[in-house]
């Protein structure tokens, strides 16, 4: 497929994905397993902006790494335009790696301080043996990432650049390979407020120019609201709510999504936050039943009613309660059914 055409962007399909990490304690022999991603399924349309949101430790970054083929899933399937990184080897894996690129949070950590901007972008081009003039490819990628004129930046080193410019170099290095999927893991959270808009604008513009599917991983629902077509909210390795950003963020169904929205600060508005009580989520100690139940305000207030035993003992599945909008909650699912039953 030709680069830049809408057909260039890849579709993603994730089915029952599980990623586990074994761990051992420093003292004693009580080792165990962390289920970082625990049975996650979703589809992303070509060219879509799909956002994975949640607190630290919810598994969003591990999920992103699995999509990149950087961690091997314990079970389940990933398919990025028909290719599963876990089943690829050699040349095929290399092609896959070229097609799925990533931008991380900290540009200083992504760049080698002793490598010039030119080298940083050219390295991937060389590794993947892209046809064409290397200098031209690098210059075009830098210009596309907003570093103009590109030649002026060729011999610059990361320490000579501002935070925003560094992130642009990282983005240039990614898009030089003409990826079909770009995974952006908190791409702006280390940047100044004034620069964030520009970098996000760049990512969305490049998505259309290069023809990419954009997977945005963030804890900031305000950015999900601004950019995403659809949002998946993760809690302790599971997706608890999934649907169009407009729906999930303005008519949330899951109590966890509601809590996250309640603590998302708004410029100019003072409010005392209703902060979730209870221990923060720990993937080593996953509670039985609904894994959110120890912190769930609905359960605590008694509103769960007859559903309470299910919350404590039965794992809720992600069900489509409203067309296109799915939620994994016994209470939200049940109340929806009740409202639709009402004459």
């Amino acid at each position, binding site marked *: 497929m030709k680069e830049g055409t809408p057909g260039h962007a890849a579709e993603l399909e994730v089915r029952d994905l599980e990623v586990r990490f074994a761990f051992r304690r420093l003292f004693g022999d009580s080792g165990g397993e962390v289920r970082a991603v625990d049975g996650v399924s979703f589809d992303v349309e070509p060219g879509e902006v799909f956002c994975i949101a949640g607190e630290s430790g919810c598994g969003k970054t591990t999920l992103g790494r699995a999509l990149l083929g950087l961690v091997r899933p314990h079970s389940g399937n990933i398919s990025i335009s028909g290719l599963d990184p876990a089943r690829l080897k050699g040349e095929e894996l290399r092609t896959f790696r070229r097609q799925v690129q990533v931008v991380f949070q900290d540009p200083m950590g992504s760049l080698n301080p002793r490598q010039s901007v030119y080298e940083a972008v050219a390295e991937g081009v060389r590794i993947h043996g892209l046809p064409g003039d290397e200098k031209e490819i690098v210059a075009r990628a830098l210009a596309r990432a907003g570093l103009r004129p590109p030649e002026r930046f060729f011999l610059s080193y990361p320490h000579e650049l501002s935070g925003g410019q560094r992130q642009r170099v990282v983005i240039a290095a990614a898009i030089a390979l003409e990826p079909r999927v770009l995974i952006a893991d908190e791409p702006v959270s280390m940047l100044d407020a004034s620069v964030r808009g520009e970098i996000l604008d760049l990512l969305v513009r490049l998505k259309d120019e290069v023809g990419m599917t954009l997977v945005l991983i963030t804890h900031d629902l305000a*950015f999900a609201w601004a950019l995403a077509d659809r949002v998946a909210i993760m809690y302790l390795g599971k997706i608890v709510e999934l649907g169009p950003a407009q729906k999930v963020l303005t008519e949330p169904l899951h109590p966890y999504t509601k809590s996250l929205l309640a603590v998302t600060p*708004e410029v100019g508005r003072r409010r005392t936050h209703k902060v979730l009580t209870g221990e923060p989520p720990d993937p080593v100690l996953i509670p039985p039943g609904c894994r959110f139940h120890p912190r769930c305000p609905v359960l605590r207030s008694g509103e769960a009613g007859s559903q309470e035993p299910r919350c404590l003992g039965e794992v809720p599945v992600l069900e489509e309660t409203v067309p296109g909008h799915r939620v994994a909650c016994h209470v939200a699912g049940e109340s929806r059914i009740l409202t639709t039953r009402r004459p």
Partner: protein
Amino acid sequence: MSETAAPAGTLLEIRNLRVLYEVRGAKAPAVDGVDLTLRPGEALGLAGESGCGKSTLALACLGLLPRNATVEGSIRFQETEVIGAKPGRLRALRWAGISMVFQGAMNAFNPVKRVGDQVIEAILLHEDVSRSEARSRMQELFEHVGIAPRRAGEYPHEFSGGMRQRVMIAMALACDPPLVIADEPTTALDVMIQAQILNLLAQLREESNIALIVITHDLSVLAQVTERVAVMYAGRIVEEGAVSDLLITPRHPYTRALVGAFPIVGDPASRGVPAGLPGDPPHPEARPSGCAFHPRCPAAFEPCDSIDPVLERHGQRLAACHLVAREEAR
């Protein structure tokens, strides 16, 4: 808290403060003529991009600037002139007078010492108390900031980022200072934890009438804990006013751009890429002519590149901007 709740008088008075760093033989101003007044118990937000001078201003208040810095002007804290004060006087001022909560609470602790002992040491260093008195003070502080005192025996790595930030706040409160300066207190934290820390800061202020300066580039945190906001650009205050007023109807184009960078969930106007601000802030050694913001300003007009605007009062608001002055003249 209402304006009248704070007792009369002045806690901190900064007059015409300039901080110059010597860079390659030339002196470049990082803070370039700042006036600020803080009453006891008041909470002020200091906002701006990196490099605007907000952290330098805080370090100047504590007398903690590096050697290559020259300070001019005056910083009066209670009865003490901080600029030019003797080292002994400054040591007494820090912690007991002004304490600071730094960004990145992870790096502020000694990894091989128990958390509680580190707080006890800080208390012993600044107050004339016995070890057991310091221990009970530490336990009191832990409870105050929402940490179970039994966790005092743990090591820093056993604490989460939010818990470590709580310990930092406990330490800052150890000597009951009238002023706490918090530099990006929630920047590296998750949303849920950020909300907890902001709630804690607001609660501490209600309980103990501590004055607070919060330094941040994240305007969305300021509404939660401050009453007044001063926005800095290129070493100067460009707009200052009551927090809700300033953040809802910003008047300086720079403040408008900063506010616009934060999308609001549910607001249809925030769907789509947030408006950024092209370009970078100027280097201190290359301050643009006229208004330092004019090369990036979307509303710049004729006098902006030649005449430097002064910070003027417009009703309840202070602004250094030709556009605001023109709007007011109408």
